[in-house]
């Protein structure tokens, strides 16, 4: 008799276990599309069955097993931060390369070509006022083109600074949200699949912003490090980041912009550790890509270098000539001027001296021999000259511009290709992760059937045992 009651109890207990198992299945199915959710399964363990010792077996519900795979998660984070960096650089370089005309008919190359043509036409009629006026006008256009390119690149720089601030803010916000979840986990919610889904979704978002490594404490709370070096979160203690632009006391380029620095809340500079992710991409654009063009405290930038060299050379040629033979001879004047105290902003300050007019252009070359239109001819031939004085780093002025544009193009093209390949790699990593820890509806349906059958079988046993017990009771009566 006692075995009948034991069977009854065991079967009734099994119903509860199968109910829990079916609950796990329903939770998986309802959370199949929840970001960050990993399929759960209920561990079923057999109870001891030793009838001689009055142990009647049965099934017990064990732990809820989480299918989340840390290797798969880390692979997704790694690709996510690489994609974040590539995306950022690709977007920034698209803005930058649009500032560089590559047709030769507009922008800086267009205006330099127009100035060269004006010089050449002036050479035909060195005393002609119209030709001289066109030279001055074309020179103004060149200065304006430099100013525009410089201002536009400064605008891109400013946008990158705004985005940097936004990204750092976003990092701090996400880490704060992870901290809140950590608090709940610390209060005993470590095994909660919902909390785990939330926290891993935050971690994936964070991984796109900056590379992360995660450590799990015994109580289930997570510690998050940036690039494995900078502690962003330890349990419920957060380290916030902020941006600064520290100015050097004795910069090599006075007036040049300061580089962006990432500091922790105790002012530790962690900039060199902030590589990768959207943050690293932005830092590279802000501190390296743009300064290579418009300079910073340590370099003048290639655009400023071009503006200065071009202006200085044109000025020197003009000043070497004379405006009128005299006597006395009237020396030539410089047609370009810029702020010499801001070598990091020559392209931005380049202009024509106030009051400079057509009559201030020197056409007469005096050395080695007197040539009435020697100066305009020399200026018109700058683009073809092999004289090192007419070149920058072995290139003509327009050739140097072409090198700048080509370099930007190469960077943009590489960033685009990297973004494309990283997108594929991230998709692969995510697909692999979902294969490992995602919810397969067919699998869940099969389990549901299995548990349903088991539940029905246990119910049947209860029904049979109940009948047997009734028959036994009838016998007694």
């Amino acid at each position: 008799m006692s075995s009948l009651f034991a069977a009854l109890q065991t079967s009734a207990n099994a119903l509860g276990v199968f109910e829990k198992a079916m609950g796990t299945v329903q939770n998986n199915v309802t959370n199949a599309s929840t970001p960050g959710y990993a399929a759960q399964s209920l561990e079923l363990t057999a109870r001891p069955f030793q009838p001689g010792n009055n142990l009647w077996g049965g099934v017990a519900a064990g732990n809820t097993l989480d299918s989340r795979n840390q290797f798969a998660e880390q692979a997704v984070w790694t690709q996510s931060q690489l994609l974040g960096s590539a995306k950022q650089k690709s977007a920034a370089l698209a803005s930058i390369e649009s500032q560089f005309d590559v047709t030769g008919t507009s922008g800086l190359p267009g205006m330099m070509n127009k100035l060269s043509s004006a010089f050449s036409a002036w050479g035909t009629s060195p005393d002609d006022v119209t030709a001289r006026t066109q030279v001055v006008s074309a020179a103004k256009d060149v200065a304006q083109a430099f100013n525009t390119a410089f201002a536009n690149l400064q605008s891109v720089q400013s946008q990158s600074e705004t985005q940097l601030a936004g990204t750092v803010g976003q990092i701090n916000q996400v880490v704060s949200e992870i901290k809140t979840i950590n608090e709940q986990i610390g209060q005993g919610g470590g095994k909660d699949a919902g909390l785990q889904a939330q926290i891993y979704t935050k971690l994936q978002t964070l991984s796109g912003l900056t590379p992360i490594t995660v450590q799990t404490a015994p109580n289930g709370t997570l510690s998050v490090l940036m690039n494995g070096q900078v502690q962003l979160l330890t349990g419920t203690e957060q380290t916030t980041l902020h941006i600064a632009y520290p100015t050097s006391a004795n910069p090599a380029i006075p007036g040049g912009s300061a580089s962006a620095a990432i500091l922790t809340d105790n002012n530790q500079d962690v900039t060199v550790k902030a590589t990768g992710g959207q943050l690293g991409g932005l830092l590279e654009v802000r501190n390296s890509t743009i300064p290579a063009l418009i300079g910073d405290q340590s370099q003048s930038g290639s655009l400023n270098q071009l503006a200065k060299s071009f202006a200085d050379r044109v000025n020197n040629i003009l000043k070497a000539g004379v405006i009128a033979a005299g006597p006395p001879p009237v020396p030539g004047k410089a047609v370009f001027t810029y702020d010499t105290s801001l070598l990091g902003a020559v392209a931005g300050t380049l202009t024509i001296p106030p009051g400079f007019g057509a009559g201030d252009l020197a056409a007469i070359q005096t050395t080695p021999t007197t040539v009435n239109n020697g100066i305009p001819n020399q200026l018109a031939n700058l683009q073809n000259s092999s004289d090192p004085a007419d070149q920058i780093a072995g290139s003509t002025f327009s050739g140097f511009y072409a090198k700048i544009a080509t370099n930007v193009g190469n960077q943009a093209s590489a960033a685009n290709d990297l973004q494309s390949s990283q997108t594929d790699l991230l998709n692969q990593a995510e697909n692999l992760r979902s294969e490992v820890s995602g919810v397969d509806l067919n699998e869940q349906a099969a389990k549901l059937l299995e548990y349903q059958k088991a539940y029905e079988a246990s119910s049947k046993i209860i029904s049979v045992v109940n009948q047997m017990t009734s028959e036994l009771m009838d016998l007694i009566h």
Partner: protein
Amino acid sequence: MLSGIHGQDGTFLTGLDRIESRISKASQSITSGMRVNVASDDPSAVAPILRYQEQINHLTQVQSNLVVAQSDGTSADNALQSATSILDNISSLASQGLTLSADSNSRKILSDQVQALQSQLVSIANTQVRGNYIFGGDNRNTPPYTLDPTSPNGVAQNTPGIATLTVMDANGFTRNASLSAREIFDTPGSTPGVVLTDATLVAAPALDDTANPGIAQSFTFRIQGQETPLTVSVPGVAGGYATQASLLTAVQGALDMALAAGTPPLAAGTITARTDANGYLRFKGNGTQAFTVTDDGADDTAKDSPAGIGAGNPGADNIFAAVSSLSVALLSDDTDGIKTAIASLKLGNAHLQTSNAFYGNVLNWINNAQSTAAEQSANLTNAMHVLQDTDMPAAITTLTTSNTALEAAISAHASLPTKTLFDYLG
């Protein structure tokens, strides 16, 4: 997260993005007609495209400049041919002046005709094209010569008469493309002369210091290319200099001292002084330096000479001098002078032919330069089109196939089975 085929949406969307990006790029290249719109489209093509465009612009301007030079050269060539005709007429008049029937009256009439033709020569020297005096040398805003009967060669030079203007071809080579009126019609002697355009000193035969006996008299002139005017102070002699030779010695000595003290210092004898038959003081360089001297215009002495001291000795082929001397010889019934003038006219005519040949060479050079520039421009334009222009058939094919791929991808994804085991559970 869903797994299985339903979890592949990320890959599908990435693929769609990629196809749409290809469509966008192909569409843009078809619309713009250019394969390279931004540097990343083809970084390796940026430098050649910019270089080609730069060179095409340069060649376009060179061609325009050559057209202007050709116009000037053609006008100059035509003008010199007219000058040749005039010179032939003058030579004919000179011959008529030597005939036995010629008398004073007829020679006077011939002189008038010569002067009229000389006036035409001056007009030719002052030929203008587009408002520029094409024989003005480096000063094309001022007529190079005006008639001046009081001048020894009948004309007054208004501009220094140097022609250094060059024209450039497509390869950057330059050459002189013009001659000045002075070089054509008013050739100087073998030694370049210097000009004191407004004489301030008369020495005929002695320095006039009657008003201030024993006091030095000075004159100042400027040498082209030097900043400080040169002041020559000639020591005074009570009662004046006994002979022209002693005067000239004093002037030369003072001049050499002033040259040595000038900026930069010039060697003694760089400029030599002389007096001409009219008693005018003239200066000329020694041929080692080409410069002109102009007076500062100030009245330096108590006596001014008449204006009109001209250049140094005229060259043997000086056309103005030859014509002027013929006119004077005809007027003064000087048959020897007429014969001398005829000989000078022949030399002048030969020099004119040389000048004409110069312009012939210039025009040939310009023609060749134009052909070269046009050929280079055409080659560069073709090369740039190859590099820059959209390959339309390829772009259209890409657009078409990408559109097809897009539709196929969307259709295929929509055809994925949507049912699971749940749909079949009772």
